[in-house]
């Protein structure tokens, strides 16, 4: 798989607006961004309301994902082009999520909403109408998702990549600096994890850095052993989906999982080891 199989630029997106085989989807936590203006023909998915179980802390199940995509008018044959705010955090999360349920024809827009806006490209408030489909998902692909017991067992054995900011990694903050500080019971990081903030993989305009720069970032700067399996985590799993995309989709590492429970789960578990301060 090459970069162009998974990542497209804004010119590609513009040239495929209205293409009947391409569904453009904006994915955000802040869906009011979509309501104020979105890429023409784009529909929206709310990463929380649409993709999370409303009661348990988990994803919507296979049936729920099928119902969502059918209702939004996405078919199994469609190519889904995802983009969003926050440097594509939630779009990358949705990309991972679509892959988890077996939708392989999925692309990410390089730079997401930010680059589109900074380029002053067209945005519209028109909401498209799409005909209902009958979407069929696969069972979750367990090779892409790490759960807590697997993470604890991976300490010292696999690459653990903590993609939060250095202040969150060392335990000085519990959340990113644009949010109130709350959530996990304890601060710090999983022992043996390397800290490679997601932002190091992105340019200022939100696009991904070149493959050779990314490879050097993880292998040379952070000392990741590419022959080992890898688990990425952050606070709730969306920034680490961005890094999962880099490692698995752009660099082609075979065994990379996203731990979506991430620090809000791990930092509240009883009895697990936690490290504070710089990586050891």
């Amino acid at each position, binding site marked *: 798989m090459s970069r162009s199989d998974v990542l497209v630029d804004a010119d590609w997106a513009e040239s495929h607006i209205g293409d009947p085989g391409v569904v453009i989807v904006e994915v955000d936590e802040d869906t009011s*961004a979509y309501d104020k203006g979105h890429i023409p023909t784009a529909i929206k998915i709310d990463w929380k309301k649409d993709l999370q179980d409303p009661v348990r802390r988990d994803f919507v199940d296979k049936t729920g994902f099928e119902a969502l995509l059918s209702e939004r008018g996405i078919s199994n044959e469609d190519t889904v082009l995802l983009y969003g*705010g926050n440097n594509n955090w939630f779009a990358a999360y949705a990309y991972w999520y679509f892959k988890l349920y077996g939708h392989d024809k999925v692309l990410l827009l390089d730079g997401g909403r930010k680059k589109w806006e*900074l380029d*002053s490209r067209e945005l519209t408030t028109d909401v498209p109408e799409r005909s209902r489909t009958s979407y069929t998902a696969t069972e979750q692909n367990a090779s892409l998702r790490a759960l807590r017991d697997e993470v604890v067992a991976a300490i010292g054995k696999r690459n653990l990549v903590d993609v939060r900011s250095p*202040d969150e990694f060392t335990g000085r903050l519990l959340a990113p600096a*644009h949010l109130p500080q709350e959530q996990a019971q304890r601060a710090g990081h999983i022992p043996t994890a390397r800290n490679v903030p997601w932002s190091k993989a992105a340019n200022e305009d939100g696009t991904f850095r070149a493959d050779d720069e990314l490879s050097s970032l993880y292998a040379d700067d952070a000392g990741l052993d590419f022959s080992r399996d890898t688990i990425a985590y952050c606070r709730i799993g969306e920034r680490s989906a961005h890094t999962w995309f880099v490692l698995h989709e752009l660099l082609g590492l075979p065994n990379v999982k996203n731990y979506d429970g991430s620090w809000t789960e791990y930092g509240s578990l009883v009895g697990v080891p936690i490290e504070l301060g710089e990586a050891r």
Partner: protein
Amino acid sequence: MSGDGCGAPAGGVSVTAVAGTLGDQAVVEGHVTREGAPVSTGYARLLGSGDEFVAEVPLGDDGGFRFFAAPGSWTLRVLAPKGLRAEQSVQADNGQVTKVEVAL
């Protein structure tokens, strides 16, 4: 603002008083304007030493932004369409709201 999301607050941030709930948080907030009018399309980035990225928010309808930083010295950088940008140093302190007004 949602409790468990990492994303942007709905509609960007509307900068209103947060006093009384600060605790030991160090808040950096302000507005971005151009020729006196709010800049509502653009991004505010908070950077640490060596240009280390810390956080980014889209500007609100009123050009507003807010960060809950650790105490210390930071660089605030603003990006807007047509290549407009600005940068300035800010100091964040526990229990304080540091106000920053940026003109592009």
